[in-house]
């Protein structure tokens, strides 16, 4: 992704900036990410808001599975704020998605060892009010979510970035500082672990 900015601030530079503002507004409406990032760099609050709207759900989904429901929102908010404060240093070498995820994942990791986030699978299934009260699909989804949260950290974060955030293997490798081959084998291992955990709890994925 290349972002070109009117860095020169002579009369021509200001004219270019004014012209760009029109394009930024248009980009904001059309959702062009590179232009949104450029506009956010210049302090446009609507561009900043559009980027938050785009990324916050995915970031929260990953953070929630790493640090738990109680801390996830604070971690993501803190990460987004830090990302936008240092936005001037972002040169577009990595994708903006990778940039944001790296900041949030590092914050999740800094929180250290997590407390258990959930009940074991069998208890979750046993504590349900009853099949007549809740749709079966929701129970299965909850069990899958619970099994996902029980995965070891390295598998949870790798598979989480793939499933919840939709990052490619190369982007995940960049966020986590791994080789792409390691990402590939971790994701495969995480899926097998998840499948085995569900099968042992009597859930057929």
């Amino acid at each position, binding site marked *: 992704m290349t972002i070109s900015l009117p860095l020169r601030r002579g009369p021509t530079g200001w004219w270019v900036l004014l012209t760009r503002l029109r394009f930024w507004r248009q980009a904001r409406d059309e959702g062009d990410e590179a232009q949104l990032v450029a506009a956010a760099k210049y*302090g*446009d*609050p609507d561009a*900043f*808001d559009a980027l*938050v*709207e785009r990324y*916050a*759900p*995915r*970031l*929260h*989904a990953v953070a*929630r599975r790493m640090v738990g*429901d109680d801390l*996830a*929102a604070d971690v*993501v*908010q803190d990460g*987004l*704020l830090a990302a*936008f*404060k240092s936005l001037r240093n972002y040169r577009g070498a990595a994708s903006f998605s990778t940039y944001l995820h790296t900041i949030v994942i590092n914050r999740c990791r800094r929180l250290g060892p997590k407390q258990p986030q959930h009940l074991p699978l069998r208890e979750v299934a046993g504590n349900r009010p009853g099949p007549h009260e809740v749709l079966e699909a929701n129970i*299965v*989804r909850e069990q*899958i*979510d619970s099994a*996902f949260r029980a995965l070891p950290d390295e598998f949870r974060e790798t*598979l989480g970035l*793939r*499933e*919840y955030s939709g990052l*490619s*293997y190369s982007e995940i490798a960049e966020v986590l500082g791994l080789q792409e*081959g390691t990402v*590939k*084998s971790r*994701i*495969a*291992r995480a*899926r*097998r672990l*998840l*499948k085995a955990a569900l099968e042992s709890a009597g859930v057929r*994925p």
Partner: protein
Amino acid sequence: MTMRDQLSAYVDGELTPEELAAVEAALAQDPELRAELNAFKRLSNELRVDEADRAAADVIRARLRRSPRSRWGAWWPALVPVVTGVVVAVVLLWPTPAPTLTSADLFGQYSEAVLSLGEPSEELNQ
């Protein structure tokens, strides 16, 4: 890299054309592999951003809109013409200080005064 590892990458569309051909050939022959592929696909469908994430994201967004940085971002363009106006007003209305007289100025004024008197009269010379 085992065929099962490749199967996971197949779900994600991360295989090279050669790997893709090998996995599809294996899938055509192995029903267990096909069952595993279906399980991976179902898991992948279930692991997604849910309502709780979207609701939390709305809260985060609202909080960030109220953050000082966002407020600054919202206000700074409005400040540009105000600050420019103030600077121009100060430059135009600033009181000009009375010029200080130097010795050269005083000599010039003295000379002009003497010359304006004209030639001294004969009576005064006597």
